[in-house]
């Protein structure tokens, strides 16, 4: 249990998707104009990461990795399908996003209309695929750990986008040099936030 908490906290603060690995920057920059929309997108990312990382974990460990197909019988013990990783992961992600979209549309039309176009966009958000690929690289021991990592990364991304959106709402009233306005200053603020987040690096978990 302690392990799970530490993986969760670690993936929120120390290995933050945005500040440590720059994943999901495109939607991070494009959608962070107002706090409301960024809360919606952030929630959707937590949701999708929390679902796709565990599913891809199962896929990796029971189908793709070397010897993972052993449960089919001894003939399959040596099969190594790891070269199919990318295409399988992205297929799962695209399918899950589609599924999540349909489920939300059916059961909560208000949430659906507030998320709007962001849901389909999540399929090409690199934070989602990145989550699955990091999960594969770090060899988590079991499904619970992978889930904790997925949810934690989502929460970290959520924090980052809500933070930058709040700052951008305020900075509209500041006198930024004209060429830096909009995109430029957002980059620099993100850099400064990243430096702030680096202070978590020393924490041993």
């Amino acid at each position, binding site marked *: 249990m302690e392990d799970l908490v530490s993986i969760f906290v670690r993936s929120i603060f120390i290995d933050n998707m945005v500040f440590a690995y720059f994943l999901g920057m495109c939607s991070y*920059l494009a959608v962070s104009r107002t706090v409301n929309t960024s809360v919606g997108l952030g929630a959707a990312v937590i949701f999708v990461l929390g679902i796709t990382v565990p599913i891809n974990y199962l896929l990796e460990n029971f189908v793709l990795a070397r010897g993972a197909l052993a449960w089919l019988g001894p003939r399959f013990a040596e099969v190594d399908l790891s070269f199919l990783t990318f*295409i399988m992961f992205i297929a799962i992600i695209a399918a899950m996003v589609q599924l999540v979209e349909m489920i939300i549309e059916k059961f909560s039309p208000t949430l659906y209309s507030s998320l709007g176009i962001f849901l389909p966009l999540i399929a090409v958000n690199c934070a989602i695929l990145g989550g699955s690929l990091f999960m594969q690289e770090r060899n988590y021991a079991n499904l619970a750990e992978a889930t904790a990592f997925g949810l934690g990364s989502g929460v970290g991304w959520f924090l980052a986008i809500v933070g930058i959106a709040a700052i951008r709402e305020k900075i509209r009233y500041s006198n930024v040099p004209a060429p830096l306005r909009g995109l430029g200053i957002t980059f620099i603020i993100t850099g400064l936030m990243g430096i702030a987040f680096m202070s978590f690096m020393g924490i041993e978990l």
Partner: protein
Amino acid sequence: MSDKDNNKKEALFSPRNQKLLTNPLGKDNPINVQVLGICSVLAITVQLRTSIVMAISVVAVMGLANVIISLLRKTIPPRIRIIVQLTVIASLVILVDQVLKAFVYDVSRQLSVFVGLIITNCIIMGRLEAFALQNKPWPSFLDGIGNAAGYGWVLLAVGFARELLGSGTLMGYNVIPGFLYEMGYEDNGFMILPPMALITVGVIIWIQRHKDRDLVDIS
């Protein structure tokens, strides 16, 4: 019919096609202006070497993906086009990944997950959606190469600045002369840290928009 004839007569490097190639380098740059595909620019530019490998990989994937989607554009049903596009890109990225693993294994290890993340690089999806689905293979190819090159030069610029200032090397060779160190020059270790990549790109955007006032964000 006459329209078709006109298209046939158009030279391979007609002015329109040249524009496709050169616009993304400057005022239509995918990174500085369209803000697409930022993730990898920031994460893998600690060294020039990784930046070069990444830039070449993206040029290859993007040129080919644009051509393939453009060839298939009349047969892809619009409803499932995103999955088709992702499948094409993912297959090309698998090829690139295997090639990198075979020929430059150490760089491939350094790039780690970021080779895979070319799949979700929004420039590629963006160009497929915006250009390749409506245009013929040759213009699509030029558009792909142009945009990938626009992405590539920013990647190289950031990688160059970060490696030079951060570790005093280029491509792994020392370029800062020894006497400067003796005079008290020190490498700025800060440049190697992730946040400095963001600030470097911010400065590049600043310079570009200072020179080209049309790009200034007035909102």
